[in-house]
């Protein structure tokens, strides 16, 4: 019962900010006016904010920006010993630096390192925190570009990437992150530039307690659905997430932008009900998955949990079952990947639920921006399927979905399953997994499946018992993150360009309404069916087998 009230409070808070934040973001991305500080940014960087870009230019900007981001972040880690506040942690090893650079630029924030002994505070702030902001802003920019494809008519221009990037960062993420960071400090989260504090324990022994500039990264890590912690235990560490209130605040931050972006979409599309329909599909799947994970963790069937009396292995007392299940569902239903409990120690069904959340394609409600464009892709697929059934050229938001549009959508949709299944399959067949698994049997297979699902979906959480420090894992997981991020982005921008070029067709009596329950059911059914048809064999060998054992 207290757990349900906790969930209720979260939903009320999301409902309260839904309209103002959604409307604010709609204004941010459609306003003609530049703020003074933004004008200064454009002047210094010699970018023309007035120019509208062709989708290929927009895509080049996304790719170019991400490429230089990877390179700079890689160099920062490799040159760590030259930076202040490195505490002698030395250059980050090449494999880790490569994987981490890709991981943070692709909004994945998979961590194959122990931050307390690997990353100094300068790399954390100047490298990792920066990409927490910028990868999130890139996701929102791409989503908005796709929305423009639907709303514009007869043009080959879909916006200006630099303007979208700067506005998303300065008008949305920065102010929200700053306020959230202060709130988190007030609730007990650390924000220290020291490496640690020495203490003499009550029993007379001595310890050093690791410290870090936590709050500034914690806020944007959740808000930007990033997930990379400044401590190894991530949001389970008491300095990142010290009590029930911070837990609830962090879950709220994870959900707030992806949820509110459906409102932004509705406003920009000229009919808010388009947004409500998407939100209802996201919410229904999210709620169902929460019920599964929560029930599974509260009713464990594994021998260790039965012996202990509850599934508390890998969970913190202050969060308990309810607070851990809620966080797990929020972090895997978005592409966040922060954890306040160790998913590897979840029950077969509960852990399987977190994997399935990712395999839906991160759209319930998904990452910031990525969730919106991913569900719009599924909407295109759903309308295409509906069109096949009635024998009419499908339309969505007044745009015909012809061969080119459906091809783009199909590529965007299929990229993730391809990299996940190829990656996990190869890792299982090749000798790569020998000795790296932390658990035997079907759970070991789940560890591998989780790793590639997490990388391919840019989530970043893990069944963390798996050892991924080998070159094989660092490289293949890095590539999965890249392909899982940029193939859909390219396809989405191509789709945006082709939609924008079309003239909007008027509604007729034959147009399938896309604001009602019929469309919501079709969309939800498409999301679930695609994931089920693609992944049930893999899930059956791992989590399903474990849950039935």
């Amino acid at each position, binding site marked *: *019962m207290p*757990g349900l*009230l*906790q969930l209720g409070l979260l939903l009320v808070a999301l409902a309260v900010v839904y309209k103002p934040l959604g409307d604010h973001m709609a204004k941010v991305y459609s306003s003609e006016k530049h703020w003074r500080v933004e004008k200064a*940014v454009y002047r*210094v960087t010699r*970018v023309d904010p007035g120019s509208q870009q062709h989708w290929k230019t927009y895509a080049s*900007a996304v790719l*170019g*920006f991400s*490429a*230089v981001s990877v390179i*700079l972040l890689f160099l920062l880690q490799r040159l760590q010993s030259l930076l202040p506040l490195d505490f002698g942690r030395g250059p980050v090893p090449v494999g880790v630096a490569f994987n981490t650079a890709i991981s943070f630029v692709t909004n994945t924030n998979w961590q194959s390192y122990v931050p307390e*002994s690997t990353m100094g505070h300068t790399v954390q702030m100047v490298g990792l*925190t*920066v990409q927490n*902001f910028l990868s999130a802003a890139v996701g929102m920019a791409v989503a908005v570009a796709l929305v423009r494809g639907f709303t514009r008519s007869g043009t080959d221009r879909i916006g200006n990437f630099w303007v979208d*990037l700067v506005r998303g960062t300065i008008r949305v993420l920065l102010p929200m992150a*700053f306020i959230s960071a*202060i709130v988190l400090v007030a609730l007990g989260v*650390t*924000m220290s530039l*020291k490496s*640690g*504090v*020495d203490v003499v324990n*009550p029993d007379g022994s001595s*310890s050093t*307690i*690791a410290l870090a500039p936590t*709050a500034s990264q914690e*806020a*944007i890590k959740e808000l930007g659905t990033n997930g990379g912690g400044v*401590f*190894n*235990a991530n949001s*389970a*560490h*008491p*300095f990142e997430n010290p009590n029930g*209130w911070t837990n609830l605040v962090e879950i709220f931050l994870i959900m707030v932008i992806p949820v509110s972006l459906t409102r932004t979409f509705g406003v920009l599309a000229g009919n808010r009900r388009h947004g409500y329909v998407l939100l209802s599909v996201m919410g229904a799947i999210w709620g169902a998955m929460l019920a599964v994970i929560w029930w599974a963790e509260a009713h464990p069937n*594994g021998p*260790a949990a039965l012996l202990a009396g*509850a599934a*508390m*292995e890998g969970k*913190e*007392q*202050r969060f308990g079952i309810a*607070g851990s299940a809620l966080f797990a569902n929020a972090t895997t239903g978005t592409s966040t990947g922060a954890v306040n409990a*160790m998913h*590897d*120690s*979840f029950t077969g069904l509960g852990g399987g639920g977190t994997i399935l959340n990712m395999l839906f394609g991160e759209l319930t409600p998904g990452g910031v921006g990525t969730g919106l464009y991913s569900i719009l892709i599924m909407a295109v697929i759903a309308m295409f399927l509906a069109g096949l059934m009635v024998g009419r050229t499908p339309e969505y938001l007044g745009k015909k979905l012809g061969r080119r549009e459906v091809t783009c959508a199909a590529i965007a949709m299929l990229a993730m399953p391809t990299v996940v299944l190829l990656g996990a399959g190869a890792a299982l067949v090749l000798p790569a997994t020998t000795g790296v698994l932390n*658990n035997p*049997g079907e*759970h070991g297979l789940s560890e591998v499946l989780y790793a590639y699902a997490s990388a391919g979906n840019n989530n970043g959480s893990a*069944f*963390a018992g798996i050892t991924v420090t080998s070159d094989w894992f660092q490289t293949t997981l890095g590539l999965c993150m890249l392909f899982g991020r940029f193939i859909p982005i390219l396809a989405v921008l191509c789709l945006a360009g082709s939609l924008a070029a079309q003239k909007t067709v008027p509604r007729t009596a034959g147009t399938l309404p896309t604001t009602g329950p019929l469309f919501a059911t079709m969309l939800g059914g498409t999301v679930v069916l695609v994931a089920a048809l693609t992944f049930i064999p893999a899930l059956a060998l791992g989590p399903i087998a474990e849950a039935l*054992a």
Partner: protein
Amino acid sequence: MTQLFKQSAAGLRMLLLLTVITGVLYPLAVWTVSRLPGLEANAEGSVVTVNGTAVGSELIGRDPVASDPANDPWFHNRPSAGSTDALGPGDPKTSGGSNKATGNADLVAKVQERVDLIAKREGVDPAKVPADAVTASASGLDPDISPAYAELQVPRVARVRGLTEDRVRALVAEHTSGRGLGFVGEPTVNVLGLNLAVKAQG
């Protein structure tokens, strides 16, 4: 290709400038505000001092070790995956869980070992040992235990410290936090605070 090159050059300029804003100015602004009285103690790790000596952090659990295990005067934290033994302290320089699955035979054996050790230490029936006492936390640094695990330890601590059980129980109650507004989070007993209070008594 030239387009990609041109955009990358603009991207580099943009990246450097946005790095200054989000990677230098933003964290320093948060840090500066966190120097305000009332926030600074939190920001620096909620350190607890006794007579001017830092004795730990309110938020970090490090299981105390008894010099004489037969006369153990401490309330104990939850197990830490960072400890090599079944029970015993982890290292607050790092953090993490065991990541063992509930069907893993190693974990089953470890839980059984903890149940037996704790039942023996407290002189109770193994069935009475609560779940949080025998499972490693996610962080390995859980500062809290359940009220049930605290209650289990009251008779032993009272006996070894020469205090009445009621007195110790009152101290446990003082260091117990309920759920926020009655429903946020879970009830917890802060082990460091409780141990310091009990130690001060006797």
